[in-house]
């Protein structure tokens, strides 16, 4: 079987210098295509979208909810594939991303593009047919935002890339809720704000660790564009705002006592991890602090959403006096 190599243009003039020649005969496995969908990112998308679905008033059949979740996951995976298609040049340069299917020479850029576009269109269309067109529109916009606004425009232009681009990762709960109800609700908006504000401290902790990597690739992340000290200040500011937003579900009336207590503990730990990053700036201690914040931020967001899921899905929502839940 001979694979025709499809030329789809290059995002930057230097791309062709870095992108490895693809094999004439594909040696890719199904696992390579799955890796193209960024499964770890996809898992967080699935989980946050699930919370959006569970928070929605009952009405849809469980099978429709499950299929909607699957289609949101496929949409997220498709945007991951399109991100890898466009970023193949810088993925080749960065140590962290060098093993991805395109720079590793397992999948060609053209194949990744075709795979990503097919899944994007398919997931959006079928979400519309199976649930409603508001949810489909939101999913389509999320993919567009991640690929065109974040990947193609902001990522290489501004150190604020992940502040604005983080919106793409914040949409899934809203899409999940919309798929179940056909509306945009306060729950979806609040969860959007929570994830949106979580993204900067999470990503900047990673950027502190991979400062050189991003610098080599020419991606203007905050540490290599404005220095690690400013990044640490920004992490503290954004963490403060983020932790405040995690109490919005209580104020908005869709989280109860369990969430409040759990979130107080998690916020304290997140604040501590951030403070360590701010204080320990050099050497191994600084690196360890950034690593801990990065890892804990993932766990913390997961647990915040787990608390919401436990309350809404398992009847563990107990009223907080004065908040009417």
């Amino acid at each position: 079987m001979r694979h025709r190599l499809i030329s789809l243009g290059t995002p930057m003039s230097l791309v062709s210098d870095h992108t490895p020649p693809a094999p004439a005969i594909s040696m890719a496995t199904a696992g390579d295509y799955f890796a193209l969908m960024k499964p770890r990112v996809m898992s967080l998308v699935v989980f946050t979208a699930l919370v959006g679905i569970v928070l929605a008033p009952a009405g849809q059949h469980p099978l429709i909810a499950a299929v909607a979740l699957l289609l949101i996951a496929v949409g997220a995976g498709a945007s991951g594939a399109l991100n890898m298609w466009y970023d193949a040049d810088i993925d080749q340069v960065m140590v962290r991303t060098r093993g991805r299917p395109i720079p590793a020479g397992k999948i060609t850029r053209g194949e990744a593009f075709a795979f990503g576009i097919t899944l994007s269109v398919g997931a959006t269309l079928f979400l519309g047919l199976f649930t409603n067109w508001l949810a489909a529109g939101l999913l389509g916009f999320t993919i567009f935002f991640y690929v065109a606004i974040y990947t193609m425009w902001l990522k290489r232009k501004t150190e604020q890339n992940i502040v604005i681009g983080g919106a793409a990762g914040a949409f899934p709960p809203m899409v999940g809720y919309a798929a179940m109800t056909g509306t945009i609700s306060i729950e979806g908006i609040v969860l959007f704000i929570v994830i949106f504000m979580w993204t900067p401290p999470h990503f900047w902790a990673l950027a502190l660790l991979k400062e050189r990597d991003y610098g080599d690739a020419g991606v203007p992340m905050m540490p290599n564009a404005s220095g690690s000290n400013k990044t640490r200040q920004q992490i503290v500011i954004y963490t403060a705002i983020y932790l405040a937003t995690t109490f919005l579900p209580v104020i908005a009336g869709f989280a109860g006592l369990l969430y409040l207590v759990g979130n107080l503990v998690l916020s304290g730990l997140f604040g501590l991890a951030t403070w360590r990053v701010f204080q320990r700036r050099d050497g191994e201690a600084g690196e360890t602090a950034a690593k801990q914040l990065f890892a804990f931020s993932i766990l913390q967001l997961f647990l915040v959403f787990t608390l919401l899921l436990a309350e809404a899905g398992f009847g563990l929502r107990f009223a907080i006096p004065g908040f009417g839940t």
Partner: protein
Amino acid sequence: MSDTDPGPIVLTAEQIKRRKARSLAIALVLVSFIVIVYLVTVVKLGPGILNRSL
């Protein structure tokens, strides 16, 4: 056939194995997709699925 024509491509055993694995994965995805569309149709139409003019 000209002298410069390399002739038909002969796949190695590993290439055949990987192509087979990819084909199987595509088949699985397609069958799953058909099952999903079928089940969603049944769920969405509900009891009305039997209610059609003959």
